[in-house]
């Protein structure tokens, strides 16, 4: 105790002091300024202090929620065991590489044939800069990250029913939409038609801003010329010496651009969760769960366990399970407490001794359909031919997008492209197909934008999340009404068990949600343990 009186003030103490003196709003601001508060409520590395009195915890599921809980509980001195359905840890934090087998329900089996060094992330694929719990773990667990290109001005936006089905470059759509709308707004501003909304002084500045922002000429018009080419690109790029002169490009007509709906492809990168800089782990998303596994004792996670029942009483929890592949005799695991991260789609089928509020909450959740496909190409034609380095092409076709690898630029002969990432009706439809049928759709859709798909496609692998045996869907689907009704009950400790996972978070479908959900759950559990 004496030692602590002379210890340098740490961040936690500083924040607490600020909070006590000036109120929580000021404290939050201080934490934000020092980079510790974020949208997820994460306030820094977890410290579960106090005597846990030899308490034991069984964690169900070794996805990111379960791994986070296991790591922090273990570090706090709990006796931890983890039961995982699959033969490996990670859950939806997953990458597929050459040699991996994807087993979908119904006996649909795919053997991934990617060359060594390539992968596809069929679950989460990108990390926002403000998902700081996840980023902190990547740093602590030595998981190197690299940027994930979310916007590429040279990628395509495609509507099969517009411009004869010919895709346009992002930069053309972006510049023309910005230019045309700026011109319109400048026109009405200059004509004084906005005098109800804009003061004369502001109107002068607004005109200046629109001229700069919209690449407008001295007449406040968005017109073919050097200035506009410098935004949307050229027909012939500038060269050197006596080679050639640049040729300016012609903007799209505004009406055609609007009706084409290509502007919908401009929206994603502006939203908070898709703003640059985004990240991905070097070498595959599953490097994150691998980092957690490295940090845990080797025998902590038991694999191939299919949970069949959960009982609890005043003393603890008893989890029944069978071999996930072979079935057979029922085994049990007992502990004082349970952190249950099994997806709700499965939990609603597992008999558990829980109260009605939690049961109703679990039963209220279905999961969204999701579909992704990775395709290996014989050469990096999107770079060599199209000069698209990373980034995303959007399309109205069922595959919804093509995402080019944000890594190994121009360094490998071959490469893997994400050829599909879709939800809703098309995800149901693609999930309902066999792997072969799906790949045909993926190639057909890709070829409508990039003819190179036909000759350069080598092999591919797909995941329809409702056919994945350990999730029965992609992520929990909350309505606002259901969240108001059942979310708190889903998260509340029930006896000796607490749920955690992306479904028990306000960041559904994000890995950050799984992690902060687990941190919050074990914090509450820990409070009970030390208070007892």
């Amino acid at each position, binding site marked *: 105790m004496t030692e602590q009186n002379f210890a340098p003030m740490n961040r936690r103490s500083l924040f607490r002091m600020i909070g006590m003196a000036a109120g929580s709003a000021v404290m939050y601001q201080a934490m934000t300024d020092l980079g510790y508060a974020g949208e997820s409520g994460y306030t820094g590395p977890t410290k579960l202090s106090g005597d846990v009195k030899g308490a034991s915890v069984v964690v169900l599921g070794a996805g990111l929620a379960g791994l986070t809980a296991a790591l922090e509980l273990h570090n706090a001195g709990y006796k931890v065991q983890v039961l995982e359905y699959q033969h490996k840890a990670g859950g939806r934090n997953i990458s597929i590489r050459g040699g991996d087998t994807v087993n979908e329900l119904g006996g649909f089996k795919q053997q991934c044939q990617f060359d060594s060094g390539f992968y596809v992330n069929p679950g989460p694929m990108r990390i926002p800069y403000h998902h700081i719990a996840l980023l902190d773990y990547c740093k602590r667990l030595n998981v190197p990250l690299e940027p994930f290109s979310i916007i590429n001005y040279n990628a395509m936006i495609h509507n099969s029913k517009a411009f004869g089905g010919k895709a346009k470059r992002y930069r053309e759509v972006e510049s023309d939409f910005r230019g045309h709308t700026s011109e319109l707004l400048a026109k009405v501003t200059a004509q004084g038609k906005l005098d109800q909304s804009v003061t004369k002084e502001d109107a002068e500045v607004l005109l200046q801003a629109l001229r700069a922002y919209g690449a407008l000429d001295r007449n406040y018009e968005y017109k073919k010329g050097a200035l506009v080419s410098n935004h949307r690109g050229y027909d012939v790029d500038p060269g050197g010496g006596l080679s050639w002169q640049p040729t300016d490009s012609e903007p799209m007509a505004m009406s055609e651009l609007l009706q084409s709906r290509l502007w919908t492809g401009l929206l994603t990168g502006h939203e908070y969760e898709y703003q640059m800089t985004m990240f991905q782990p070097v070498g595959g998303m599953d490097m994150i769960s691998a980092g957690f596994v490295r940090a845990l004792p080797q025998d902590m996670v038991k694999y191939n366990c299919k949970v069949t029942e959960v009982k609890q009483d005043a003393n603890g929890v008893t989890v029944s399970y069978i071999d996930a592949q072979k079935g057979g005799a029922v085994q049990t695991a007992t502990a004082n407490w349970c952190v249950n991260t099994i997806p709700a789609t499965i939990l609603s089928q597992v008999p558990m001794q829980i109260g009605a509020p939690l049961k109703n909450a679990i039963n209220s959740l279905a999961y969204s359909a999701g579909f992704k496909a990775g395709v290996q190409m014989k050469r990096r034609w999107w770079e060599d031919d199209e000069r698209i380095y990373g980034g995303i092409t959007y399309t109205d076709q069922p595959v919804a997008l093509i995402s080019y690898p944000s890594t190994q630029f121009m360094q490998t002969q071959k490469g893997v492209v994400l050829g599909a990432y879709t939800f*809703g009706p098309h995800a*149901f439809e693609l999930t309902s197909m066999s792997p072969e049928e799906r790949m045909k759709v993926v190639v057909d859709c890709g070829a409508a934008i990039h003819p190179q798909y036909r000759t350069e496609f080598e092999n591919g692998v797909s995941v329809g999340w409702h056919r994945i045996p350990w999730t029965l869907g992609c992520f929990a689907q909350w309505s606002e009404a259901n969240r108001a009704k059942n979310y708190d009950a889903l998260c509340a400790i029930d006896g000796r068990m607490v749920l955690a996972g992306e479904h028990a978070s306000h960041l559904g479908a994000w890995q950050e949600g799984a992690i902060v959900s687990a941190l919050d759950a074990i914090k509450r559990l820990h409070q009970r343990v030390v208070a007892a």
Partner: protein
Amino acid sequence: MKSAFVVRVLGSALLLGLSVSSGAYAQGAGAGGGRGGFTEQGGEAIFKNVCQGCHMPDARGAVGAGMYPALAKNPKLEVAGYPVSVIVNGQKAMPALGGMFSDQQVADVTNYIRTHFGNNYKDKVTPADVKATRP
């Protein structure tokens, strides 16, 4: 009819990289089905493009960490109102698909399932029956 399911799907889609607009954009403006809905017509097409993703092409369901029930020879299909209600309103892991289907589509796929896969129920579901189950 405002689709609660569409709102949920697109709301979730917002979180995973599709703006609301590009979500609708990505679904396309196909004939029928409406925004965010299924465009398949007829029970067979609906079953093969939607239902069999979970219930499997032979309607025998599947077992993993959890299970999808078989629709083949399923006695719960005897009272037609039950499958109609499950399709429209969902039940546990089965999503509520009512917002993505018209009354006609739900009727068609219910009638298809109840007369195939070893099921042989004679009574038919009408769109009016489906409408009655909607919230």
